[in-house]
């Protein structure tokens, strides 16, 4: 007997009382979604920028390696996407669009259609995400309603920059991935 059969058979052999799968109520979040989202991002050590603030920030930095996957921001790009993600190692800034954001926790959803390389939002030193104010949902229940039965090979919630507190619980931003996360609300 294969291990698969062995495992499944031993589960089948156990007397179990059938417990029903509950419905999930439609929980709502009170308050202004934009405000809530901003607070959440800041609490996660991200930053919210206007387009103007973004322009100031970028002109005060002298980035040599920028990739943009957002049409309106292509002018900032310094390079095209390489074929192999390993070549992204020196990438300083990636600009990506997200599908929607979640007000309760600042999480933003992207899938393969926003990610020409799945490694992109992780390997870059700084990350800028573009989110439309129209595309805010209140909490994670609505987030999954919105994703629905969408079939993408990879999907991802990003809620902040890469962080760790593994050394004496001191928060350090930029563990392996981005050392900063900026969100441009448009």
């Amino acid at each position: 007997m294969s291990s698969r059969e062995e495992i499944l058979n031993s589960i089948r052999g156990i007397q179990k009382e059938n417990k029903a799968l509950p419905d999930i109520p439609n929980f709502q979040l009170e308050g202004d979604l934009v405000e809530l989202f901003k607070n959440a991002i800041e609490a996660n050590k991200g930053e919210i920028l206007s387009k103007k603030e973004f322009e100031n920030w970028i002109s005060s930095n002298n980035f040599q390696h920028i990739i943009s996957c957002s049409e309106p921001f292509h002018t900032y790009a310094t390079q095209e996407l390489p074929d192999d993600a390993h070549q992204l190692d020196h990438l300083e800034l990636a600009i990506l669009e997200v599908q929607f954001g979640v007000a309760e926790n600042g999480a933003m959803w992207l899938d393969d259609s926003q990610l020409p390389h799945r490694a992109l939002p992780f390997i870059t030193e700084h990350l800028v995400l573009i989110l439309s104010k129209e595309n805010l949902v209140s909490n994670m229940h609505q987030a999954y309603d919105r994703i629905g039965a969408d079939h993408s090979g990879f999907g991802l919630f990003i809620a902040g920059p890469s962080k760790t507190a593994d050394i004496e619980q001191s928060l350090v931003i930029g563990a392996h991935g981005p050392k900063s996360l900026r969100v441009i609300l448009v």
Partner: protein
Amino acid sequence: MSHPKAAAEFLKDQANSQWHDETLWMIRDKRDTSSKSIPEWEKLRNLASDIKDNVLSNLDQYLEQFESQALKNGIKVHWAKDAKEHNEIVLRILQEKNCEAIVKSKSILTEECHLNPYLEKHGIEVVDTDLGERIVQFLHQPPSHIVMPAIHLKKRDISALFHEKLQTEKGNEDPTYLTNAARLHLREKFLGAKVAITGVNFGIAETGEFLVCTNEGNADMGVHLADTHIACMGIEKIIPRRKDLGVFLRLLARSATGQPITNYSSHFRSPAEGKEIHLVLVDNGRTRQLAREKFKNSLKCIRCGACMNTCPIYRRSGGFSYGSTVPGPIGSILSPGLDMKKYSTLPFASTLCGSCSDVCPVKINIHEQLYEWRQEITKHHGAVGKGLSMKLASGIFKSPLAYQFSGSLMRKVIKSLPKIVIYNPLNSWGKSRNLPEVPKESFQEWYKRNRHE
């Protein structure tokens, strides 16, 4: 192993054990604040518990559904009945890929299976990439906490370690500096690895996808740069529907650290073009635990670590005192299921104050199960309790520190829980229960009485 003995060891460094205690309490506090910001928190806990109950009562069907969906998505599925088979499967894949160096991200399951020493024995370099895990790996230690693997160490220890291993400046204890050194070191490993191994937080039967949640982004760094992703998953990690994630992701990080969600929640459904995903489904004692009516609820655990942070014994005795992969209250009910003799003292490492059950996001009746295990262990006294009685006889419990630990300290600990926390009407875990009576009887007395019954 003996919990009291190991705990006494940890308590020797008083300043460190006090810091450990206070830090974990602070995290417990953050969890409270975070959970109180959600009016439906208790409803979410009930939902999570009910969903997991449903999973356990239909586990075979969900596993089959999960497998068939995953196969359709192009994931290769493997089944392992125990740790040995799990390790062999992983090694076989690595050998097929001619892979000699892998990166691994936080996976308690691979710890449980002792995958690292097994692969190393076969000439494969294993690099744990979570910062805390890399630190303990350098020290040849296991993680002491399931969410904060290096919580038992101080920055001076890590500074000295990195000076030796990563050539950082001697005496530089700045966490940012040390983290950056690890970043550079691990970046190289990520770029060089052809295979990446991760654990799994949730597997979705409906879609055949699985989730990996991290704050560092280390799982994704490894996986997306490698050609092959091996995900190792305990069979109890299944949940039925994608929308159930709404419930679990709201609970998980808030319970773990107080943050509203981990910074990265990655949903893997099919491999990127030209790449492979292998999923290893592991039993290793889980079906046995499922068959134990009194203890099967322990399989609902989502490994948030909240029961550890709140536990007065864990906070004071440290994760290593448990001698098991999963320490703390939940470890004390899982481990005796794997080896009752070896872990016979663990269910006694508790005041039975019930704080663990009160914070558990999936409402496992942890402290009741601890009590049940005590009954079981005492019943099997002839076979397993022997080690315990020998320890009693040989005087371990007579040493002042250990005695204090096993008896009066426990009683003191629970008395010293701030009443304001327990009785505060806004406090969700204090609301539903009164502070339990402090046991009047010491462990020794309890044990002596019970061994004759």
